[in-house]
């Protein structure tokens, strides 16, 4: 559907101004490039450099750095882009570095990752209804992603805590087992030994055996008590360990809570029209914070105060950006906003469209060709102006200044040199004003062809030609009209009235020709069609 006007290919050679000014190779390259672009995918607006291995390796080193690993993917890409890597090189680097943080990448749904273009294309070329939904969540998505990571940390820590508890519990159980069983065994052994001993002794002495038994029992009891004491001590230590774990956990939770609080306040700020964000961005402009810093707009006025404390008076010769002094009232308003006050001069305005389905009115004028597009029309229209001396040293010279109507040339159209001359000679030299201005240096004067204000039924018919009515053909009819409009001061007056009124036409009987400029309804869609 895209048809870049083929005129541009022809235009170049006819443009002496640009030829004089530009290197010649531009012209030849342009004429070559122009048709190529339309037919083949290799356009001049595409980077066709091969991948530079050195750059890719540097990028891989960068991406492998642990600190970089933790940053969002889009900031990594942005850094590499600023270093001059192409998309292909960046994608290659990402491919070579395994990405262990799926959390970070998953939340950046629209950022080109290793799948690069495919992913972005699938995201960008969504259905319009999805598109409406898509951009609005991107704001909260970034914050949600942060909260998501927070909550993941939260879960992680909870799991850790549970693990600790379980471990400590298991540890105590194990300790118990280790403590009790050997003691039991030793106790049994002792008892057995003692029994044996006692058995031997008993033969000798029964009475002491009782005492001995008692002693043994006491010993056993003491041992048991000692064991119990030890066990309880160990329990205490494990409990204190648990306590420590708990405390650590609580402190971590507190940290998380604080972070969540700051996030929620940041979100509130974001929702509340992020005034500080707007200020911060302005300060960004002035301070020239490089893109490596994190997204400042969400930070409350921090950037603001920093920048205002720095009033650089150094000479502007260096490329280092310095803070331009802001107007005093600007500072006052900023201070108000920082305090949370709203400036009193703000009104409640409802700027919603009263009728969102209001049909667009019909345009009254055909689009006018741009100065840089005029070249090809010029070639055909030159012959139509025998009266003009426009020696085509400049392709952009046009029979002009039919706008110099009324008493004085509209001031915005006077050229520097001729200001007084034109004023003086205006009224007398109406007819020859064209010649006068044509004597000006070729480069300086170009005024476009008038919108067809003249009574020309042929022209009206030409305009009403359906389709093929690209603006180029419109242009030609304009030129034809101009040729005829060059004679006759009445026409000039009508034209000036037309232009002076800014195109707002009054329905005069005489100006019935002006109606021919109205776009007939059937042509309304011409310029809006792709």
């Amino acid at each position, binding site marked *: 559907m895209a048809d870049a006007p083929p005129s541009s290919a022809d235009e170049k050679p006819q443009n002496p101004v640009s030829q004089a000014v530009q290197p010649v190779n531009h012209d030849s390259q342009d004429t070559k490039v122009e048709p190529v672009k339309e037919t083949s995918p290799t356009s001049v*607006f595409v980077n066709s450099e091969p991948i530079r291995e050195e750059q890719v390796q540097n990028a891989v080193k960068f991406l492998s750095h642990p600190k970089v690993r933790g940053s969002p993917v889009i900031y990594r890409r942005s850094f590499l882009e600023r270093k001059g890597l192409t998309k292909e090189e960046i994608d290659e680097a990402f491919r070579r570095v395994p990405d262990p943080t799926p959390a970070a990448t998953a939340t950046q749904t629209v950022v080109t990752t290793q799948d690069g273009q495919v992913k972005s294309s699938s995201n960008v070329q969504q259905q319009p209804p999805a598109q409406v939904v898509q951009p609005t969540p991107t704001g909260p998505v970034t914050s949600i992603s942060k909260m998501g990571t927070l909550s993941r940390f939260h879960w992680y820590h909870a799991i850790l805590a549970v693990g600790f508890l379980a471990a400590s519990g298991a540890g105590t159980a194990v300790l118990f087992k280790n403590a009790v069983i050997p003691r039991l065994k030793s106790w049994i052994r002792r008892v057995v030994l003692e029994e044996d001993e006692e058995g031997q002794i008993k033969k000798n002495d029964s009475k002491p055996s009782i005492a001995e038994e008692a002693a043994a029992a006491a010993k056993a009891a003491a041992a048991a008590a000692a064991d119990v004491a030890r066990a309880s001590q160990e329990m205490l230590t494990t409990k204190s360990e648990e306590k420590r774990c708990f405390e650590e956990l609580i402190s971590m939770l507190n940290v998380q809570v604080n972070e969540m609080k700051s996030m929620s306040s940041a979100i509130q700020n974001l929702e509340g029209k992020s005034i500080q964000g707007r200020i911060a961005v302005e300060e960004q*402009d002035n301070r020239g914070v490089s893109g490596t810093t994190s997204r400042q707009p969400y930070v409350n006025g921090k950037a603001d105060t920093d920048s205002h404390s720095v009033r650089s008076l150094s000479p502007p010769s260096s*490329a280092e950006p310095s803070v331009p002094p802001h107007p005093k009232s600007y500072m006052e308003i900023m201070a108000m906003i920082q305090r949370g006050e709203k400036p009193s001069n703000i009104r409640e305005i409802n*700027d919603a469209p009263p009728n969102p389905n*209001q049909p667009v009115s019909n345009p009254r004028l055909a689009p006018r060709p*741009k100065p840089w597009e005029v070249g090809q029309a010029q070639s055909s229209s030159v012959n139509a102006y025998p009266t003009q001396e426009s020696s085509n040293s400049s392709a952009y010279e046009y029979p002009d200044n039919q706008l110099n109507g009324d008493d004085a040339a509209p001031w915005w159209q006077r050229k520097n040199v001729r200001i007084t001359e034109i004023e003086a000679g205006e009224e007398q030299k109406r007819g020859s004003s064209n010649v006068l201005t044509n004597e000006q240096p070729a480069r300086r004067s170009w005024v476009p062809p008038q919108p067809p204000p003249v009574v020309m039924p042929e022209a009206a018919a030409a305009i009403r030609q359906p389709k093929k009515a690209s603006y180029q053909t419109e242009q030609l009819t304009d030129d034809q009209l101009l040729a005829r409009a060059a004679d006759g001061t009445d026409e000039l007056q009508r034209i000036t009235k037309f232009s002076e009124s800014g195109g707002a036409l009054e329905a005069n009987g005489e100006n019935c020709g002006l109606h021919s400029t109205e776009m007939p309804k059937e042509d309304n869609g011409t310029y809006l069609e792709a």
Partner: protein
Amino acid sequence: MPVFKVPFNGYSVKFSPFYENQLAVATAQNFGILGNGRLHVLQLGPAVTERAAFDTADGVYDLCWSESHDSLIVAAVADGSLKIYDLSLPPASNPIRSLHEHARECHGVDFNTVRKDSFLSASWDDTVKLWTVDRPASVRTFKEHAYCVYSAAWNPRHADVFASASGDCTTRIWDVREPGSTMILPAHEFEILSCDWNKYDDCIIATASVDKSIKVWDVRSYRVPVAVLNGHGYAVRKVKFSPHRGSLMASCSYDMTVCLWDYMVEDALIGRYDHHTEFAVGVDMSVFVDGLLASTGWDELVYVWQHGTDPRAP
């Protein structure tokens, strides 16, 4: 040259592509920080008069005239919406459309001069969107920039190609037929606030940055700029190539000046106007009158003057 005073801080000014004596001005209250906005349509004559004005709830950061319809204007509003106004309808019927998809401020709009049926919006939500007047939803969304997109500009000769300038310090070239950007120019070390194509060489693009410079690039060999234009004292807010001369461009800056450059010439700065008393934020060159400039700034003034004359001369 008459000057026009607007009630709010000026943000953008554009000449009409249909009427040589018409231009529109986008303004925002309270420097665009927080407040209402207003779109003015001015008429040039012995004095500059206001033909129409439309109030908006939030500041208007940019505007563009339709290239196919002489009375349609698209306004980029700070609340993220795009409003379309039809001057041939009474004010009570305006705006005729409000397109709200951007999640953050709309900072730039540009109308396609080749196909004349579509326009782009650049937003601080990192995306550029493609629209047509007759559709209520965007046609395409281009999301690749890592930071605010400040401006988007159609190529004057290729109907499907456009460039975007972003705070992520890159300028990207896009083709609407392709899913993603086709070229990435890491044009500056700091944020890029504006970009524009050379009307007479469709491969030349200029970028204006916070680093106070304007760089001119040839997309065919984009590693090294064709020219680096220094001279502004602070960030350059907007750059515009002349519709009449291939190498001429106008720029406005936070140093309150409007400068004219010819990047083909050794000493590129060929004009400097310091008529504004606050940041100069908007500049445009007329397609009808060679050398006619318009500028606006935070000093709430709109100037229209011929290159070579004093803007403040009565």
